[in-house]
C-alpha cells in the first residue's frame, strides 16, 4: 500500500566508477534507504561522464534540501580522483571504505593524506567502524582491575587479519590509547584469510598473554583467553554484524569524526611510515 507521505532523512549519494560493483552498490544502498528513508542518487562514473564540475552540478540538482547529504564514496581512488573533491563539496558526511576492493594499503594512505591536508572532518571509514566489536573484545580484558595494571606493561602485539587497513587501524587504536610509539612496542602483523576480516589479536606483557581469537567453526564468536601470571577462564562473545549496510548505517548515525579516530589515524600513520622506513 502506498503512502501519501514519505519521510526523508537524507540524500544518499553513491559514487561508483567500476561497473562490476554497480549492481551490488545499488542493492546495498536500497537496503539502507529502506531503513533510513532517503533520496538515493547513484553516480555511475564507470561509463563516459562529464567533467567533475558537470558531475557536481548534475548531482546537486538531485539533492533534497533541508536534510543532510551523505556521500558514499566507492571509487577506486579517493584524493587522487578529481570527482572526489567535486562531490565531496556537496556532502555533509563522507563515508568510504579504506579496505574496499583489493584491500591494499593504498586507500588508507590516501585517507591519511586527506586528513593531513586539513580537509573536511565529517569522515567515516567503514574499515575503522568494522573494528568496533574487536575494540570491545580487547577492552573487556582490561575492565578487570587486576589485569588493567598489566596494560601499561604490554610489550608486544600480534594482529592477524585479511587486509592491512584493519591491521593498521587496530594497531593505531591501541597505540593511541596506550601511548605507544613504533619504537616502544614490538609489532607483528600477519596477513591471513579474507579481506576485511580480523582473526586474532594477541597482546603480551612480560608475564601474561591476552588473546582474542575468532572461532569460526562455532559461529561468529570471539573467545578471550588470558595465559600466564594473570590466567583467566575462557570467555566468549558474539562477533556482531559487520555487513556493509550495517556499517554505513553506523556511519551516518555518528555525529562526526571522533577524536579517538583522529588519534588512531595519526598513530597508524606513524607505524606505517616506520614500517616503510
Amino acid at each position, binding site marked *: 500500500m502506498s503512502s*501519501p*507521505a514519505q519521510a526523508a532523512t537524507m540524500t544518499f549519494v553513491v559514487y561508483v566508477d567500476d561497473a562490476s560493483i554497480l549492481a551490488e552498490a545499488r542493492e546495498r544502498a536500497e537496503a539502507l534507504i529502506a531503513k533510513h528513508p532517503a533520496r538515493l542518487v547513484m553516480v555511475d562514473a564507470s561509463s563516459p561522464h562529464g567533467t567533475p564540475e558537470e558531475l557536481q552540478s548534475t548531482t546537486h540538482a538531485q539533492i533534497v534540501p533541508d536534510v543532510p547529504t551523505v556521500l558514499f564514496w566507492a571509487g577506486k581512488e579517493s584524493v587522487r580522483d578529481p570527482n572526489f573533491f567535486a562531490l565531496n563539496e556537496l556532502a555533509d558526511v563522507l563515508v568510504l571504505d579504506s579496505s574496499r576492493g583489493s584491500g591494499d594499503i593504498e586507500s588508507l594512505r590516501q585517507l591519511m593524506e586527506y586528513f593531513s591536508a586539513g580537509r573536511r572532518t565529517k569522515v567515516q571509514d567503514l574499515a575503522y567502524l568494522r573494528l568496533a566489536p574487536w575494540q570491545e573484545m580487547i577492552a573487556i580484558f*582490561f*575492565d578487570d582491575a587486576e589485569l588493567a595494571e598489566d596494560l601499561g606493561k604490554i610489550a608486544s602485539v600480534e594482529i592477524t587479519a585479511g587486509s592491512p587497513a584493519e591491521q593498521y587501524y587496530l594497531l593505531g587504536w591501541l597505540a593511541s590509547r596506550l601511548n605507544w610509539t613504533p619504537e616502544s612496542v614490538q609489532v607483528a602483523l600477519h596477513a591471513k584469510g579474507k579481506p576485511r576480516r580480523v582473526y586474532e589479536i594477541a597482546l603480551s606483557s612480560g608475564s601474561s598473554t591476552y588473546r582474542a581469537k575468532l572461532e569460526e567453526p562455532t559461529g561468529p564468536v570471539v573467545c578471550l583467553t588470558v595465559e600466564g601470571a594473570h590466567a583467566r577462564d575462557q*570467555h566468549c562473545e558474539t562477533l*556482531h554484524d559487520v555487513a556493509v549496510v550495517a556499517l554505513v548505517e553506523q556511519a551516518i548515525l555518528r555525529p562526526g569524526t571522533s577524536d579517538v579516530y583522529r588519534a588512531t589515524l595519526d598513530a597508524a600513520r606513524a607505524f606505517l611510515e616506520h614500517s616503510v622506513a
Partner: protein
Amino acid sequence: MTATATAPNPLREGLDTQRISDPCTIVFFGASGDLFKRMLLPSIYELRQRGTLPTNFALVGFARSQYDDDGFRAYCKEQLDQFAYGAKPDGAMWDDFAKCIRYVTADFGDTSHFEALKRILEENDRDLKTGGNRLFYLSTPPSVFPGIIDQLQKAGLDPKSNPKGWTRIVVEKPFGTDLASARALQTEVEKVFDEGQVYRIDHYLGKEPVQDIMALRFANVIFEPIWNRNYVQSVQITAAETLGVEGRGGYYDSAGALRDMIQNHVMNLLALVAMEPPATADADAIRNEKFKVFASIQPPALADVPKMAVRGQYDAGLIDGKPVPSYRTEPDVNPKSDTETYAAVKLFVENWRWAGVPFYLRSGKRLARKVSEIAVTFKNIPHRFYGEKTDEIDPNVLVIKIQPDEGVSLRFEAKVPGQKSHIRTVSMDFNYGTGFGVQSPPAYERLIADAMRGDQTLFTRWDAVQRAWEIVTPIQQSWQNATPTFPNYGAGSQGPHGATQLFDDWRTL
C-alpha cells in the same frame, strides 16, 4: 574475565557500547513458569548475544520444579530452542552462557531455601566475580510477592545485609488488585527495599512506540504549542484486542479490563500524552511529571460513575469470520461471571493545560480489531469561509499508533483538484516499521537491561501506582455494588452500546 575496574579503562574511551558495566547476578523467582520461558529467558539470552550483559553475569532460577543445575541448564536450552527470537543456543556462546546458570528447587515459604540461594550468590561473587550485585525478579503470582520479600530479609538477602553491592527487586504487574491490597503490598516492600531499589514493571512502557510518544512531543517544536485545551477537543486512548482470555481465564476472571489494562497500561499512556516536558531525561524528573498528571485527575464521585465509566462483557460472536465462544464459556471462567472484558472511562486532567478536555480511555477483549492508539482530536476551525456548502470540514486528528503498524498519522483537510473548491479529508501517515525498516526489540529486553543498569525511567513509581488505584477505586466500588446485564456485546463488535452514551464519537475499530 572480571569487571571490577576502579580506574577508567583507557581502551573504553570513545567506544560505542551498550554493555552494562556492573557485574551482577539476576535471580528469577518462578523460573519454571510461562513468563520466564517465553519472555524473560529469551530476552536475557538476546542481551547476551548483543553484548549488552556484563561480562561477569550469572543467572539463578528459583522455583518449585525439581532440577539440579545441569537439569535447569538443559531446561533453559530447550526453552531457548523454542522461544529464542535471535540466535538459538549453540556452540561456544551457549557453553559460555550455560556456565553462569544455577538453580534452587524451592518452597517460597522455606527460609532454608533462601539461605541456599544466598550461598549460591556468594559463590557467584567469589567464582564469577559478580561483585555482590543482585537483581531479584519476581515472575511469580502476585500472591507470593510478600512471602518472597519477607524470606529475602530473613535469609539476609535484603539490601541492608549486602553493603558491598547493590540489591534491586523487579515486581511484575499487577501491583495489588485494588487500592487496599496495593498499599498492603507496598508496606511489605518498604520494610525491605527503598523506592530506588524497586522496579515495578509494566511491559507496555518498554514498547518502543510508547517511548516514541515522548520523542514525538519533546523532540519536535510543532506539536507543543497546540498541545493544550486551546486547540485540543478530546483525547481518545484505545487498547483493543481481538483475542479472548487465551488460557488466562483463572487470572482474568479475578481481574477484568479495568484492573488488567486501564489502571496501568492505559493510564500510563494518558500520563505520557498529558505530562509537562520534564526538565531533564532523568528518571525521577520524568516520573515526577507523570505523577503530576495523575494527581490532577480527580477520582469520580460514586454517584457520577455511571456517567464516567461503562463496562461490558463479550458474548459469542465472530472474529475474522470465525465463531468464538462467549466469555462465560471460556475455560476457568465462572459461568455466571460478572467480570468486565471491556471498560471505557472518561477522565479530566484538571490543570492549566488540560482543563475541560475529556480523555476517553477504553480497553476490551474480543473487539472488532486489535489496535492500541492515542487519538488527539483538535477543535474545529473557528470560521468557515472555504469549501462548498455541502462539504463537511472535519477536525484535525493526530493519531499515535502503538500497535499494530506503529506510527503517526495526521488527518487534515485538503482541496480536491478542480475548478470547484471541494474540501476532502486526507491522512498523512508515517510508519515506524517502513520508515526506519527496523523491528523494535521486545519490551522485556529493554526493561531487564534498564533494571540492571539502575535506570528506573520506564518503571512505575509507587506514588503513581497508588494514585492510579485511587482514580479507579470509585469505579470498582460502583461496579461491585450493581449487578451488570452481561453479556452485553458480541465478540467482533465495537463494544457495548452503552459506550456511546459516554462518548458518541469513538473512533471505529
